[in-house]
């Protein structure tokens, strides 16, 4: 378990730094534009808000937050990987990527499809508690959905069901999972930022999440390949 945990921490750091660097270089300029628009809008309305931190401190905070999230995801990923896979099979790379893909879909993509990320300036501070609860519910639904998909895939494989039907069954579970999240009420916040800015931000958000999970899973896969080769050689 500890070896898997160590690999998870290392992989999470790589994924977090990769996502942090990407976001810092490509997404921060978009967020700064969104913040400028928000400040201009507030000024036009005669409001003036005092920020707790300056934008440049928030830029540093962004990289720190992304690294911390990467490390935390890495820890949980390492623990789950060890619980799901006990003995090495020679397919360390495939296992690592599948678990990374499942985590991305369950924890990031399903919530994103229901409540797409919004740039700064969009989102009413008064509704944040309710929005946070609903978003958390989508994360739980996503996790249960991918876990169910994985269990069904494993069960069908053990029964010798052929690949095409197994993959269709998993796809069906995932579609049902996304559909279930649409039972939740819509986000009613007004989107005051320009649509092009909002969608540019959303694509960058999805890319950052994909990089985080991709970097994490790929690093974990490479490290496990090496460890498995050693374990198989000594066995």
């Amino acid at each position, binding site marked *: *378990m*500890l070896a898997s*945990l160590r690999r998870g*921490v290392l992989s999470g750091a790589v994924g977090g730094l990769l996502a942090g660097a990407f*976001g810092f270089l490509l*997404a*921060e300029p978009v*967020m700064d534009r969104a913040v400028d628009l928000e400040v201009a809008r507030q000024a036009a309305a005669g409001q003036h808000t005092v*920020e*707790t*931190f300056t934008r440049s*401190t*928030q*830029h540093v*905070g*962004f990289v*720190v*937050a*992304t690294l*911390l*999230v990467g*490390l*935390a*995801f890495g*820890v*949980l990923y390492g*623990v789950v990987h060890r619980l799901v896979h006990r003995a090495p099979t020679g397919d360390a790379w495939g296992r690592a990527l599948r678990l990374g893909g499942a985590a991305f879909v369950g924890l*990031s993509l399903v*919530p*994103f499809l229901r*409540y*797409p*990320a*919004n*740039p*700064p300036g969009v*989102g*009413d*501070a008064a509704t*944040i*508690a309710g*929005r*946070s609860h609903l*978003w*958390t519910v989508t994360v739980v639904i996503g996790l249960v959905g991918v876990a169910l998909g994985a269990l069904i895939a494993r069960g069908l494989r053990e029964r010798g069901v052929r690949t095409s039907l197994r993959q269709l069954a998993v796809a069906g579970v995932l579609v049902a999972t996304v559909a279930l999240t649409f039972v939740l009420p819509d986000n009613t916040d007004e989107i005051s930022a320009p649509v092009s800015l909002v969608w540019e*931000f959303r694509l*960058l*958000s999805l890319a*950052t*999440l994909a990089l*985080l999970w991709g970097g994490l899973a790929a690093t974990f896969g490479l490290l496990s390949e090496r460890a498995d080769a050693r374990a198989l050689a000594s066995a």
Partner: protein
Amino acid sequence: MSQTQVAAGTRSVAKQGLTAAVTGIAAVLALVVLYAVFLDQGQLLSPVMGQVAATANYLHELAHDGRHLLGAPCH
């Protein structure tokens, strides 16, 4: 059972306990970090800092951009 076997058995139990403890602590820490970055509105700091933690919302404001870009609700 010889004394060395007993000693080895005790060591292995101790090692398992340590592994479980380290894993548990790491997992709890990971969840606290995720809460702090994605959901906190002053709750984590308010026992130490009082009401100002909720008004100034330090953790939220520091992690603000990360929260937006990683898709969590923000303002």
